[in-house]
């Protein structure tokens, strides 16, 4: 299939480089270019434009003079508190709003019942509403135009979901500020991609791994349109890479499971080659360390000096304040963060140390506690990735994985929005690091689950022993104990207000998430696809349950690949999806694809007397992954932290 991956990779790189540069810096909302009448000559068009500009200028002067005259009249009357009346009228601003091509396009498909205009005296700004009415008589705003009273110019247009969703409006830097700039984003892409690819050996460059890495970066294409406020383009563009990565991860897990389940031929030689994962990239250790320092200096510096805190980070600070005051965060959030209590309890507990150092002032200000917490979550992820690579093979692999995390632009995006999503990733990363310890992975998965609920899809898979070597110990109970330990460690937050807190937790989190509506998925944009969404949900859940028994043998790669596939599958079915969710599955994908994993070793051929009807594994030596005679303990893929 290499003949196929090369052109696809080339096309993806070309698209990425060509589109990301100019488009990432595109202004948020641009009015569509004015069409020139086909029969008009260029000179005629220029004259017409000049005449129109002159007329507009004269109207503007007239409005200014009228406004000054009214203000003077109000002042002469001795009424200092009198408000200066607007220069424009309802009819005038409605007429101006209707000239917007964007609004015209929208209302052509969404007929409106009426318009309304509202004047903001403080901002000296008009808002014109285009309202539709459904069969039941319920009204909804289809479009809005903001018009300056002073100049009579349209300053902003909102159509469809942009009316209700501020995050759909494409305000520059609303999420992550400077990280969206091409001069930051593109170097991060290069810093992520180049050290991971065998650029010095071109023949090895054409591989599935290259395509996987490009697929991870290709979410950037969607972000371009999101930053423009064009979510009907950006949302569909997120699905191809997610579907590809989901299927690819599932395939890696399935193929490794099948290979491990194969019984070796009696005279089959033991597979040759290294038993520890290697590093595919070309960069030496010192260069990886240097690049990692550069990437972290850039991320942390931007976080300190040029980042913002979105509602997710704000929620954490508020919750920590509530817990510090001995009350539950659920149902007690202020009005400016109405849905801020929709996360698991760990999300609020994790902010407590930072909030106690930099207490919340009661407003949505710079929120230094959120900056500190987000940086700590990010550093936990980085440390986990380095630890995993180091224990698996070498410091070089650890630095490679660490750099992959630090340089991946969407992890920087998560950090610079100061959201809590890296906390979910940290739980999963350290869960993988403790994969060989059932209680450890139970605790870590429980903590991830106590932050956001999506990792719950991994409960069944992670209950299994993730290494093919046999063991005489039962592992489910320690695993369940770990989950319970994590639950008890954070669950007390729900009881701060007694049973009311538990009820509030249910209604504000799980019940809220089930009833959530959002334009940030195909399911939200096209409600007719709801049956397909339900089918996909069922497939993902069935897949998660099937992994309880199949494949019969797992190794670390298969566990990570299946975990990533399940998380991606769960995200595919979400009604509300956002780029901040990419870091949930990113570490698992990176662990599955970045190291050069040794080929899975088939099961040793059973002795004739021992061969049972179902060839079930039995505890004891010689039933490991390698050839006969090898100790399972020694031959299994190296467990992290072992």
């Amino acid at each position: 299939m290499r003949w196929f991956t090369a052109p696809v990779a080339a096309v993806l790189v070309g698209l990425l480089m060509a589109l990301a540069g100019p488009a990432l810096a595109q202004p948020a909302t641009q009015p569509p270019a004015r069409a020139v009448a086909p029969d008009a000559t260029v000179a005629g068009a220029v004259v017409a434009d000049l005449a129109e500009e002159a007329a507009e200028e004269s109207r503007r002067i007239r409005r200014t003079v009228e406004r000054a005259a009214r203000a003077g009249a109000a002042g002469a009357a001795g009424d200092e508190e009198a408000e200066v009346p607007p220069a424009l009228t309802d009819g005038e601003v409605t007429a101006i709003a209707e000239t917007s091509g964007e609004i015209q396009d929208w209302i052509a498909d969404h007929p409106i019942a009426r318009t309304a205009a509202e004047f903001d005296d403080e901002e000296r700004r008009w808002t014109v509403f285009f309202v539709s009415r459904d069969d039941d008589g319920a009204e909804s705003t289809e479009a809005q135009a903001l018009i300056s009273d002073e100049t009579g110019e349209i300053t902003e247009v909102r159509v469809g979901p942009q009316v209700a969703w501020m995050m759909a409006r494409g305000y520059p830097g609303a999420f992550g500020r400077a990280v969206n700039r091409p001069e930051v984003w593109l170097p991060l892409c290069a810093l992520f991609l180049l050290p991971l690819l065998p650029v010095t050996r071109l023949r090895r460059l054409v591989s599935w791994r290259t395509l996987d890495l490009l697929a991870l970066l290709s979410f950037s294409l969607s972000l371009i349109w999101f930053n423009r406020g064009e979510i009907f383009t950006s949302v569909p563009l997120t699905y191809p890479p997610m579907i590809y990565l989901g299927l690819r991860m599932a395939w890696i897990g399935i193929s490794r499971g099948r290979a491990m389940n194969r019984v070796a031929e009696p005279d089959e030689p033991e597979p040759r080659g290294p038993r520890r994962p290697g590093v595919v990239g070309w960069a030496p250790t010192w260069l990886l360390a240097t690049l990692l320092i550069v990437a972290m200096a850039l991320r942390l510096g931007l976080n300190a000096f040029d980042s913002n805190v979105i509602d997710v980070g704000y929620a954490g600070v508020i919750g920590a304040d509530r817990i510090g005051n001995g009350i539950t965060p659920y149902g007690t959030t202020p009005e400016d963060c109405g849905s801020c209590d929709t996360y698991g309890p760990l999300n609020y507990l994790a902010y407590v140390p930072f909030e106690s150092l930099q207490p919340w002032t009661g407003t949505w200000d710079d929120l230094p506690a959120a900056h500190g917490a987000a940086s700590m979550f990010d550093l936990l992820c980085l440390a986990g990735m380095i630890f995993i690579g180091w224990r698996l093979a070498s410091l070089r692999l650890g630095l490679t994985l660490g750099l992959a995390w630090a340089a991946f632009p969407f992890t920087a995006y998560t950090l610079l929005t100061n959201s809590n999503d890296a906390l979910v990733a940290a739980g999963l990363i350290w869960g993988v690091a403790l994969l060989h310890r059932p209680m450890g992975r139970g605790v870590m998965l429980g903590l991830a689950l106590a932050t956001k609920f999506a990792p719950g899809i991994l409960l069944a898979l992670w209950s299994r022993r993730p290494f093919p070597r046999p063991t005489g110990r039962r592992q489910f109970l320690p695993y369940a104990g770990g989950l319970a330990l994590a639950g008890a460690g954070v669950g007390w937050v729900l009881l701060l207000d007694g049973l009311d807190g538990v009820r509030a937790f249910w209604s504000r989190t799980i019940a809220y998430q089930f009833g959530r509506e959002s334009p940030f998925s195909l399911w939200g944009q096209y409600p007719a696809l709801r049956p397909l969404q339900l089918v996909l949900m069922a497939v993902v859940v069935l897949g998660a349950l099937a992994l309880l028994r199949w494949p019969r043998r797992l190794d670390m790669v298969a566990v990570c690949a299946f975990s990533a596939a399940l998380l991606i599958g769960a995200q595919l079915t979400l009604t509300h999806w956002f780029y901040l969710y990419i870091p949930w599955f990113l570490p698992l994908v990176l662990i599955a694809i970045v190291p050069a994993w040794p080929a899975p070793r088939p099961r040793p051929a059973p002795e004739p007397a021992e061969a049972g009807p179902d060839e079930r594994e039995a505890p004891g030596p010689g039933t490991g992954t390698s050839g006969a005679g090898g100790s399972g303990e020694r031959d299994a893929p190296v467990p992290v932290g072992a």
Partner: protein
Amino acid sequence: MNRAFERWAPWAVAILAVIVWVGPLQTGFYLDGQLTDIPVYRGIHDAIADGQVPYRDFLLEYPPLAGVLFWLAGVIPGAYSLGFSTLMLACLIGTALAVMATARALDTTPLRRAGAGAIVAVSPLLLGAMVQTRYDLLMTVVLGWCLWAAVTRRFTWMWVLLAVAVLVKIVPLALVPVLFVWHRHHRGTREALLGGAGAAGVVAVAMLPFVAMAPGGTWDLVGYHLDRPLQIESTGASYLLGLHALADIPLTVESSFGSQGLTGRGPALIAGLATAALLGLLIAVVWCLIVGLRRSRPPGDARLFMAAACATVVALMVAGKVLSPQFLIWLLPVALLVTGRFGRATAGLAIAAMLVTLAYFPRHYWDVVALEPGPIALLVLRNLLLLALLAACWPRPSIARHPRGWMLRGGSVDRTPGERAVAARYLTE
């Protein structure tokens, strides 16, 4: 021929330094638009000549021996700037000779000694006219001979010269731990403590009259440097400037303490972190030297010591909250004498850092202050080169074991006469 070359090499280096100084350095390329401290020095001279006492009657931001230099420059007949330039030329020659002498003490060939001396002699072309408008060469000549005394184990001279260097500029104080460890390695803790106490005594005796006359004014000498903000060319500032160029983070540039610095909470935080990093680096250098010296024997131990001295000086530059362009002059007595696997890289990086500094200073300095992206890129590059230089000259134990580096060895491994004899025997047999 070798003996004749060895005899004439110092003279040739001195003549080369004079030619460079009076020739190319006085051309328009180097003189145009230069930023000079000469008026400040002249003002100090005038004040001293009027009978005023430094620290009591006027603020002197430098230690007292610097004041002696400024006074001396005015005593020389002719224009003040010419007299100062002549003194600095003498210091440059003295530095070149110190480097050659130290290289000789490190058992190098005459050609290599001459190479190191020649680079110092032509260094004004790499550094620009600031060598004759700043007094840092006085410190480098004293420091150069101090290191020579250390390598040749003239420990009394080493401490005396260190005290003199500290009385010229406070910076060499940072070398005290390295010199102490070196002295202790050879003569024991007691003698090292006595040496350090002697140096402290020399400094105390020199400072005592001023402290007695004007304790507050003398303290200002230290307070002046502690109160300075994050200077715009420092590594921490260049990090912020890089972020500004990339992401437009807001920065405020303020002129104070005779230079331009960044003010605000962010720069103050970075300055604090840089100071902590500096302390950590100095401790790490000393620790590496202690560990390395345990397993080394002459002349490897001297090479390790030289690397530690160089790393200390470079650490002061990269982690300090001030990194004026003239600080690169400090590299002359140390950076060309580092050996080992990265000896060549150390010299190359030092020269590259000087050249990049020359690319933006003084012509584009005010563009840096105006936060223009191009000169900021040069500044960031210069500071990255200095960071790489710190990594290259780090006193790793392998330096003591490794054959001499590029500056001190040629293509083949340089051996002591005894080792050469053994090799020759095997070759012939």
